[in-house]
């Protein structure tokens, strides 16, 4: 089985988010970058599927040279080889087109990624890739098993889940609890240094949106503390001050 796992290079979930250059650029000062948490689930499941069924895992990132430590981490976790499309990830369409161009001649049975990136939270790339390639796209996927040429999945819906069966190949946007995140071991880290990481130039430059500027949310006011002996006061405040009851 040939699996392509697309990963994002995103700020750690605990990062303080701030902007520079007149609020047009993300401020990377002091920010730790990680594999997108949802992508990390996709990668972990790919590693498990490879252990069960054999095959190979290619990890793909669209980004500048600064993403290579993140890509190496994916190699340490268990991917066999990596491709970096050397371009700023402009918008969902741009990234999806790059992925589709890499994938179209790759003969992949599964194209996995996270349900969304945690920087832009678009949740659109898997669907766009699927449509460009003419493949089914399923997201958000909670469980994924392969039986012969069929993928059996559970997809999260509001208030529950639905179970699906889809013939390979397909594109899936993954989320927990599809697999447990894997922590690279020493052998993985050592071998990741010598695994192939191919850099390719982007094909095309089409985007369909343009970022104008970033904004920070308004500062939160102070918390109003209510005595534990007087919960009735809270009911009054919710009714008359917040007006939410």
């Amino acid at each position, binding site marked *: 089985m040939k699996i392509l796992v697309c990963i994002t290079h995103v*700020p750690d*979930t*605990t990062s303080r*988010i701030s*902007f520079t250059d007149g609020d047009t650029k993300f401020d990377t000062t002091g920010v730790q970058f990680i594999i997108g*948490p*949802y992508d990390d689930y996709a990668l972990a499941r790919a590693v498990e599927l490879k252990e069960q069924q054999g095959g190979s895992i290619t990890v793909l990132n669209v980004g500048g040279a600064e993403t290579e430590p993140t890509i190496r981490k994916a190699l340490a976790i268990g991917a066999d080889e990596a491709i970096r499309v050397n371009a700023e990830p402009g918008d*969902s369409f741009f990234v999806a087109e790059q992925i589709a161009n890499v994938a179209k001649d790759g003969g992949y049975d599964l194209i996995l990624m996270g349900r969304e990136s945690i*920087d*832009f*939270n678009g*949740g*659109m790339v*898997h*669907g*766009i890739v*699927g*449509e460009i390639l003419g493949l*089914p796209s*399923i*997201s*958000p996927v909670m469980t994924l098993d392969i039986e012969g040429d069929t993928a059996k999945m559970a997809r999260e*819906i*509001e*208030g*529950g*889940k*639905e*179970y*699906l*069966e889809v013939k390979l190949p397909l594109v899936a*946007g993954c*989320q927990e*609890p599809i697999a447990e995140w894997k922590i690279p071991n020493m052998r993985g880290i050592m071998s990741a240094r010598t695994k192939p990481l191919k850099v390719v130039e982007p094909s095309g430059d089409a*985007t*369909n*949106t*343009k*970022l*104008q*500027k*970033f*904004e*920070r*949310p308004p500062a*939160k006011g102070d*918390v*109003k*503390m209510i*005595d*534990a002996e007087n*919960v*009735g006061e*809270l*009911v009054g*405040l*919710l009714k008359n001050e*917040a007006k*939410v*009851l």
Partner: protein
Amino acid sequence: MSILVFVESSEGQVKKTSIEAVAYAAAMGGDVTAIALGNNIENSELEGLGKYGASKVLHADDERLNQGVIQAYAAVIAKAMEDTGAEVLVLANSSLGNPVSARVSVKVDASLVSNVTDLPDTSGGFKVKRSIYTGKAFAVVELTKNKKILAIKKNAAEVKETGGSAAVEKYKVTISDNDFGAKITNTDKATGEVLLPEAEIVVSGGRGLKGPENWGMVEELAKELGAATGCSKPVSDMGWRPHHEHVGQTGVKVSPQLYIAIGISGAIQHLAGVNSSKYIVVINKDPEAPFFKAADYGIVGDAFEIVPKLTEALRAAK
């Protein structure tokens, strides 16, 4: 401007988030047509969309569309955009809407933005504000294509009843068997509950509740408020509550009017899922719990005493 709105239903009723999408489209100005798929929706529900500003509702009542098959839905909606000459498609962010709209954007060559929080600014170009970094920031984005797709976040528009009844038309489309390649074999869904992503009030519990057997009082409180119940990640990881109730960075992101957190310390990953709530109430026995910093109202004390008292006080205040 001609606007098409994709409307979802649940148990025969139009979803509240879809009503918001219709209201959003109406507030944009222009001619609003809604489209609903499947024959499991009440006709009166579709006519009722007129109240929120839809002049017409297309009803693709093919039985095969009773299940949300992503590719088939995308094919029908893209065709409807073409047939109605819609320049804009509006839909609510959802587990079905987002993957469907991604495919539609390719079919009709549209600019696509999700998590939209405000009405578009059309004073120069077509710009919208969207939530990014899991609610920790916003981006203003210009949509550069002629056609546009907006997946809106809850509370992006105020729901106002203005119009009357909408004309419902049957909408027939030929859908290729290929588009039904994904077979939905079963659905496992809570019924009769207030759904978390749609709820105006959410009551969530964390590890402070000590075990799944103590959720009764959370449910009581939620019932009194007409609220949905949620939980923190550890609670869902330990299997105390189902995954679809997990609120946070890698779970459901909610934006209710009121979020009540009980026995949740407020890790940054949890806050990421609730930071677009209008008001936050935190009940925790630890006065140093970081969640208090993000709260509007706080009570320090034992949840096992406070929660039943709060339910009682709400009942008394009715």
